[in-house]
C-alpha cells in the first residue's frame, strides 16, 4: 500500500514537471546560443536568394516566395549586431509565425548560423534576462536558461516579429 502511494506520488511529481516543461528550438549565432518557442516555428529551410527591398535596414534582407506568400527574411546576426557571415547552402532560415491582435498570422524568416536541437526547459529554471546596459539590447530576450551547462537566450518571437512591422498598423 505504502509503495503504491509513493508510486502515485512520484508519478504526480513527474506529471507536474512535464507540465512545466516548454520546448524550445535552439540555434546558434556565432558563439551564442538562442532559443525560440517551438510552437512558433513553422518550418526550417535552407537559405535561398531573396528579392531585395529598397531603402530598408541592411538586416532586412528582402522577401521570398514561400508557397505563394511573400515572406520577409531577416538576418538575426546583423539584427543583433554580430556581424555578417557569408551565406552558404548550409545557412539556415527558421520560419517563425505569430498571431496579430486582429487574428491573422504573420510569417517571417530569420537567418541563423545553424539549428542545434530541440530542448526541454523547465519554466521554473528560466531566469529573467539581466540588464547588460545599453550595449546589448535585451528587448527581445525573454529569459535565460541553461541546457547542459550552456546558456541559451530565449527570444520573444512576438517582439521579434513586431519589430519588423514597426510603423505598420496590424490591420493592413
Amino acid at each position, binding site marked *: 500500500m505504502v509503495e503504491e502511494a509513493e508510486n502515485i506520488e512520484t508519478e504526480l511529481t513527474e506529471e507536474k514537471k512535464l507540465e512545466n516543461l516548454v520546448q524550445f528550438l535552439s540555434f546558434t549565432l556565432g558563439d551564442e546560443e538562442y532559443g525560440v518557442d517551438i510552437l512558433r516555428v513553422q518550418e526550417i529551410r535552407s537559405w535561398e536568394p531573396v528579392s531585395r527591398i529598397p531603402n530598408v535596414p541592411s538586416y532586412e534582407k528582402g522577401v521570398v516566395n514561400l508557397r505563394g*506568400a*511573400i515572406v520577409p527574411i531577416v538576418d538575426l546576426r546583423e539584427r543583433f549586431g554580430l556581424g555578417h557571415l557569408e551565406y552558404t547552402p548550409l545557412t539556415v532560415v527558421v520560419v517563425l509565425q505569430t498571431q496579430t491582435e486582429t487574428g491573422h498570422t504573420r510569417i517571417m524568416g530569420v537567418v541563423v548560423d545553424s539549428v542545434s536541437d530541440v530542448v526541454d526547459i523547465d519554466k521554473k529554471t528560466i531566469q529573467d534576462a539581466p540588464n547588460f546596459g545599453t550595449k546589448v539590447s535585451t528587448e527581445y530576450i525573454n529569459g535565460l536558461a541553461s541546457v547542459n551547462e550552456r546558456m541559451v537566450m530565449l527570444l520573444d518571437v512576438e517582439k521579434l516579429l513586431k519589430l*519588423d512591422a514597426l510603423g505598420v498598423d496590424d490591420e493592413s
Partner: protein
Amino acid sequence: MSIDMAQFHQVFFEESFEGLDVMETGLLNLDMGDVDDEEINTIFRAAHYIKGGSGTFGFTSVSDFTHVMETLLDEMRDGRRQVTQTAVDVLLGSVDCLREMLTAISDEQDVDEARVAEHKKTLEIELNGGEVKTDSATETGSEAVVSEAGTITDSSVNSDGEQGWHIAFSPHAHLLKTGNDPVRMFRELSHLGELTATVDFQGVPGFYDLDPEECHLSWDLKIAGDIPEAEIDDIFDWVEEECDLAIQPLSAKSTKAEQSAATQTVDESIQAKTEKTPLQAETAKPVPATENSKPKNDKNKEAAKSGAKGSSSIRVDTGKIDTLINMVGELVITQSMLSLVGEHFELNKLDQLKNGLSQLERHTRELQESVMNIRMLPISFVFSRFPRLVHDLSTKLDKKIELVLVGENTEVDKTVVELLSDPLVHLVRNSLDHGIEMPADRIAAGKPETGTITLEAYHRGGNIVIEVKDDGKGLNKDVLRAKAIEKGLIDEAAILTDKQTYELIFMAGFSTAEKLTDVSGRGVGMDVVRRNIQTLGGNIEIISELGKGSTIAIHLPLTLAILDGQSIAVGDERFIIPLGAIIESVNVNESMINRVAGKGETFRLRDEYIPIVRMHEIFGVKTAQALKLTDGLLVVVEGQGMRCGLFIDDLLGQQQVVIKSLEANYRKVEGVSGATILGDGSVALILDIPGLVRLSNQ
C-alpha cells in the same frame, strides 16, 4: 419548424433588391399616353414576389406595405385604373420606402415606422382616390381627393395601430422554477398578432446577488390585431398564479363597426399573413417600441455603412460556368496526355511533349481568364440607378436633362463596380447641379433647351474608362483660381496650367457653388471622390471648355487582383511597372538632358520637360549597369497627373502578374505598391508610380 429560415434571408434580400430595381426601371419607362401592358406586368410580378417572400419570412410590415402597392398595380394591370404621373410618382416613392425597409431589416435595424406609415397613407390615398374619381388627373381634383381620402385612411391607420391588447406582465421570481418560460409565451403571443415587447429590468439585482434561476424581469407587451381576449388568457393560463398580470384593450373604440371598409381588408390581410407565418416569432425579435423615428441623417449614415459592406454573393451567368467546366475538362485531358507522354518518354516524343505543354499553357490562361470573368459584372449595375436620379433631380432643380448611357455592357470586376457607385453618383449630381444651366440660360447661350449628360464606359488598354460628360457651362478657370486664392488653397502668385487649375476642385474644402443646395456645393465630396478612385488604383481627370461643357473621366484597372505589367531590369533586380502607367520608353542623347541647379535632372520630350528618376539611386541598386543616362532607357510614366522618366537598365517583357500584398507579412514600402511572383518563383516588386515621384522629390 426545424429548418432555419434565416439562411434564406440573404437570398431573399438580394432578389428583393433586384425586384425593386426592376420596378424602378419599369416605372420610369412607363409612357403615360400609351401604357405597355407587359411593362406593368413586370412591375406587378416584382411587387408580388417581394410581397410573397416577405410574408414567408415573417416581415409583415413589408408584406403589408407591398400588398397596397400590389392592389394599385393590379388595378392598373386590369385597365381599371389609368396610369397617371401622380400614381407613378407615388409608386416610385414607395419603391424607395420599401428599399429602406428592406435595408433596415437586413441590417437588423429598426424600420422607420413613421415614414412607412406616411408612404402607406399616400399609397392608400392614391388607391381610394382613384376609386372615388376615376379621372382625377387634374391638380385640383386630386387635391380634393387627398383631403377626402385622408380622413378615411387616417382613422384606418390609427385603428390599425391601436387595435389590440396591452399586457403588463411581471412574473414572480420563482416563475422559471415552475417550468414556465416567458420566451415561449411571447412566441405564442406573436403568433396571434404583431407583438411589441418592452422589458423592464429595474428589478434585476447586482451581479453578486443574482440567482440565475430566478426571474427578475417584467415586461410591457403590446399586441396588435383583432384578437379575442380568451386567446390571450389561454396563453397566460399556466402562469396566472405566478405573476402579476393586467390585460387591457389598446383602444376602447377598436370595435369592428367603426372601421372603414378599406381598413378591414388591410387588417384581414395582416391577419392572414401572420397566421400563415408562425415563423415570425423565431426570426423577428419583438421590436422595441420606439415610437419616434430616428433622426434623418442617422439613417443616411446607416445606409452608407450597409453600402460599404457589400453583398457577399454573386450571381453568375450559367453560360460562364459552362465555359469554366469546359475549360477544366480540356485541362484534365491535356494533363492525362502529358502524363502519358511522361511515363515512357523517348526523345522522339519531344514534339508531342512540346505540343502538350503549349496546350497546357493555353488552357491555364483561358481558365484564368474565365475565372476572372466570373467576377466581372456589366457596368449597367451602376448605371441603372442614374435614370431615376436624373429624373428626380432635374424635376427638383427645374432643369431639362436627357441622360444618355453608352457602353452599359462593359464588364468590370465586382469590387470595382461596388465601390464605383458612390463617386459616380457624386459626379452626376455635380454635372446636374453645376454643369447644366437653367433652360432659359441655355436658350440664351444658343444651346438646345434640354441639356445632355452622357455616361459612357469603355475599355482602353488594361483599364476601364468611365466618362461623365455634360454640355453645360463648363468650368471657369478664373473663378476657380479666384476661389482657390480666397480659400487660401493656392498662393496668389502661383502659376497653374489648365490641368492644374481644374485639379483644384479636387482639393478638400473647395466649392464654387454660389449658394449651397442640398444637391451639392458643400465642398466635401470631390476630394473624397478622388480618394475613392485612387484607392481603387485608378485616377480621375477633367477636360472642360467654358460654355461648352465638361468631361470627367475615371480610369480604373479592370480588376484589382491581376495587373498587366512590364518587367524591367535594374542591375540584377527585377521590377514590374503597371502597363497602364507607361506612356513610352525612349533612348536619350546628351542634348536632351538638362540639369537643374546641379541637382535634379530633366529631359526634353517634344517640348515638355520631364524630371528623371534614377531607379538605381532611389532604390540603392549597387549592381546597376547603366550609370550614364545615355546607356540605359528612360521609361516615361504617369501617375496622378505627374509625369516622370524612370531611368532603368532594360525592358524585359510584358506579362500579367498576380498582385500579392507585401503588407500581409511585412510592411508598406515607399515606392512599391505590392509584389508578385515571377515564372521562376522569385519575387518582383510592383512599382508605385505616384509613390516613386514623391520619393524622388524628397
